[in-house]
């Protein structure tokens, strides 16, 4: 159930997403951007902000961010510039961040999200702007009493960061989470970012308040709260649910409306499951933005935009439809596959091509491959069983070597043992049953089951099912379908 049907108010949510671009090098210098190397080993005079150092823009980062903006249906500014955002912090070695203020490189886009199970109505979320900026370093605070110490790692400083700001178009925590999933999926499909929240390559802040209809028809609005420190999409959802309830409670207690206090920032405490007010200053911070004199403005041509657009590939929303059409699979199947990311889609298409039947391949993906991945906590790229092997099993089932359930056992065994399908089949003593042996087996069963024979003869063909279980007990390798078909044929042929 979504909040909008449950509560006498509307929840209004806007998101601010920071996404690290997947580039080899930083935005304004040649340092590499690999995550996890020893602190302060990926630095140079420019990203250390040493005296006299100058930035030079990484055009690849700019093009990647263009790709993201185009996929988010944004308008692209043909002329854009850089600005300095001034503030003091130890992880910001220049004392300013190079960002974009009044002329972002893109603006006015949108990204739609819908829930295949219909938990909420499809929602188009407008994107206010997407701009590019450099990331700050990382501060690590040792809170140990008496020996408190802060350490700074500047490896991340200067990593290209795309900031995506939405309009307040989301109406529930659930929608927000789903929209973030869709955004992440899109960015991963575009190859723009790896969107790894643990490594900090995707960070989300949320702005939320409630719109409460009043008896006189007026809509009262609660003060907007910005929530920070959310480390996963699940946290975003939980924090928004908590904050919605908290604001509702506060509204009922105080009736405080927007404008009655400065905008509040609250931090999400994951373990306690609550948001907590962060100390806010009397005056809002003044970043004293001004044009960055060390960089020249960036111009973009229509040709460059067309080039980037043509190399972009299909975004997930389009791919879902393409996949359903191309392989004649249900929309829900296509949705599940696409939502797993481009690597899994590639796996599926490889399998479907080999099998030649999309629906069969999709069934195996959904019921076997995905389930196994979930159980093993593995991603498709680490999965040891390649599409060739799955296609091999399916081919044997289709050929009638064994039935689907037997095929599943073989698949599980291939996953577990890490051996080939042929080896597993041989190891399990599975061999195709010779037609002569099958006929002999069926004749034997007919002789042993006069009641079934009489029923079938009398027109109740489904009675033949009773023979299958017996056949499997006599020879586990028999194909149930073949047993059934041959048994009926033999019974009908009886005088």
């Amino acid at each position, binding site marked *: 159930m979504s909040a909008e049907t449950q509560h006498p108010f509307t929840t209004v949510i806007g998101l601010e997403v920071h996404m690290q671009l997947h580039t080899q090098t930083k935005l304004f210098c040649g340092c590499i951007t690999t995550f996890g190397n020893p602190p302060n080993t990926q630095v140079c005079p420019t990203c250390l902000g040493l005296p006299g150092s100058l930035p030079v823009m990484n055009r690849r980062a700019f093009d990647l961010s263009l790709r993201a903006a185009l996929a988010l249906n944004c308008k692209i500014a043909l002329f854009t510039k850089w600005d300095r955002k001034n503030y*003091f912090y130890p992880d910001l*070695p220049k004392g300013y961040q190079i960002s974009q203020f009044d002329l972002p490189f893109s603006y006015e886009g949108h990204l739609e999200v819908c829930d295949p199970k219909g938990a909420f109505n499809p929602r188009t979320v407008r994107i206010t702007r997407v701009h590019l900026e450099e990331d700050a370093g990382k501060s690590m605070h040792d809170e140990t009493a008496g020996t408190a110490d802060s350490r700074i790692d500047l490896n991340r400083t200067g990593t290209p960061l795309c900031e995506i700001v939405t309009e307040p178009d989301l109406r529930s925590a659930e929608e927000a989470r789903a929209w973030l999933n869709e955004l992440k999926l899109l960015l991963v499909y575009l190859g723009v970012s790896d969107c790894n929240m643990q490594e900090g390559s995707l960070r989300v802040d949320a702005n939320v308040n409630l719109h409460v209809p009043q008896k006189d028809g007026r809509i009262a609005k609660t003060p907007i709260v910005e929530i920070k420190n959310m480390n996963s999409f699940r946290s975003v959802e939980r924090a928004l649910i908590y904050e919605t309830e908290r604001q509702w409670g506060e509204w009922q207690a105080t009736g405080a409306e927007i404008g009655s206090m400065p905008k509040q920032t609250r931090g999400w405490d994951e373990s306690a499951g609550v948001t907590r007010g962060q100390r806010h200053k009397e005056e809002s911070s003044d970043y*004293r933005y*001004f044009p960055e004199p060390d960089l020249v403005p960036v111009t973009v041509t229509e040709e460059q935009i067309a080039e980037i657009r043509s190399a972009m590939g299909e975004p997930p929303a389009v791919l879902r439809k393409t996949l359903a059409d191309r392989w004649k699979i249900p929309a829900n199947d296509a949705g599940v596959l696409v939502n797993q990311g481009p690597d899994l889609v590639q796996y599926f298409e490889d399998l479907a091509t080999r099998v030649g039947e999309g629906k069969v391949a999709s069934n195996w993906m959904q019921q076997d491959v995905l389930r196994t991945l979930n159980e093993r906590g593995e991603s498709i790229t680490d999965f040891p069983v390649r599409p060739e092997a799955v296609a091999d099993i399916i081919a044997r089932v289709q050929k009638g070597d064994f039935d689907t359930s037997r095929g599943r056992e073989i698949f599980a065994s291939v996953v577990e043992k890490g051996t080939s399908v042929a080896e597993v089949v041989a190891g399990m003593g599975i061999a195709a049953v010779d037609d002569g042996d099958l006929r002999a087996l069926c004749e034997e069963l007919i002789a042993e089951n006069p009641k079934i024979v009489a029923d079938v003869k009398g027109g109740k063909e489904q009675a033949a099912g009773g023979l299958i279980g017996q056949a499997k007990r006599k020879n586990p390798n028999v194909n149930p379908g073949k047993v059934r078909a041959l048994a009926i044929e033999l019974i009908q042929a009886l005088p």
Partner: protein
Amino acid sequence: MGRWCSARNQRKVFMTLTNRSAAELANALQKGEISAVECTTAFLDRIEATNSTINAFLTVDREGALTTAEAVDASRAAGKQLGPLAGLPVAVKDVLCTMDQPTTCASKMLKGYQPPYDADVVQRLRAAGTVILGKTNMDEFAMGGSNENSAYGLVRNPWDLERAPGGSSGGSAAAVAADMAPLAIGSDTGGSIRQPAGLCGITGLKPTYGRVSRRGLIAFSSSLDQIGPMARSAKECAMLLQAIAGHDPGDSTSLNIPVPDYFTDLEKPLQGLRIGRVATHFSEGLDPEVAEHVEQAFATYEAAGATIHEVELPHATYGVPTYYLIAPSEASSNLARYDGAHYGHRWDGTPSGEKGITDFDSPLVEMYCRSRAEGFGPEVKRRIMLGTYSLSSGYYDAYYAKALRVRRLIRQDFSKAFENVDVIGGPVSATPAFKLGEKTDDPVAMYLVDLYTVGTNLAGIGGISFPCGFTKSSLPVGFQLQGPPLSEPLLLRTAHQYQQATDWHLKRTAALSS
């Protein structure tokens, strides 16, 4: 240490070496009449003898300079083809990063700071085989017009030791004027090469913005800063500019336009050259002696075949206020990095009795405030505050944004003027060198020393200053020429032709002859 003995034995020769101009020295070096070691030793000894008086150098790298000189001599002996500057000593303003010498910007904030890289210009100087003698004194972070704002002591004008050499490249100007270096590198944000060159009787060129890479130049005001050559004559400035100009992919604002040969046009006569004269340059405030020498320079040009034309720069009057909004605004941001957290001066934790900074949000903020309070001098603080104020929300439009608009008008003034004239001539400064301490209590009076020079920086064009006479009390008077973007060949030629007709640039100071 054989070289010290030989140095002492030949001291007489060396003393006369320092009297010779860079062009003469280059010639003698190329012909093998003198060695780079001899030449370098002569200047090092001259510095040793005079620096305690002048304080032009903050760092002298005797060891490094002689090592470079030896290497040049060895290359020459091995018959290697060397550039025209090989073996020539040069002094470098302490605003340029040198990885083998401290780079302090004459600030306590960067005391002992040693950069891990060389500025582009320093790389080019090394590649040209020049011998870097050391780093010259300056106004702290290049902020000032008298060189009195140095954390390491003021610089004295070699023509009158009680007077200022001008600034901010006062150390470089004084070094050349006092024969402590034949060539020097300066930087010019609002006149910092041309004004001290004028007050010290030498020649200094501020190239077009982007002609020389700013990479490794410690930023004061990024959109105005430009590095340039300082020497006795325009010809020697051409030699030095030839070595340091050029595109640098490491500086996004560096011009990717080929560097011309600055000697090609030098000897062309000035017949038909149109020189602009701005009437308002000669209004109230201009010292009569300065006016007289500047007018004489115009007469000299006319005699050489040039024509003088009145031009207008209607917005020139807004130059100084515009400059003092844009430059401090950028400086307030450029100097934010000196926070005591990463390098440079950090407050050691001892409580100080300073007033006014008592309300700290956190120990971190206290460290920032106290480190900056201790590390920066008063003029730097004044400009950081001016700039921070003009960029603040609520004031931005009235100050910084408006200054940017006026800057465009000033640039248009010059473009329009250059439709009718080839260069614009006039005074560099309203007065000759002023007394030390004369303006230190009056920041606005000090800011007005930039009156004739800031326009060049705001417009991003080129300017050159050179001596055009001496006052009755033997103080040099400077003449300034401003030219359109990339007019360096014309500016150098116009100055060189003047120096062919006059000998003001050859005059040496007697103040240090003892």
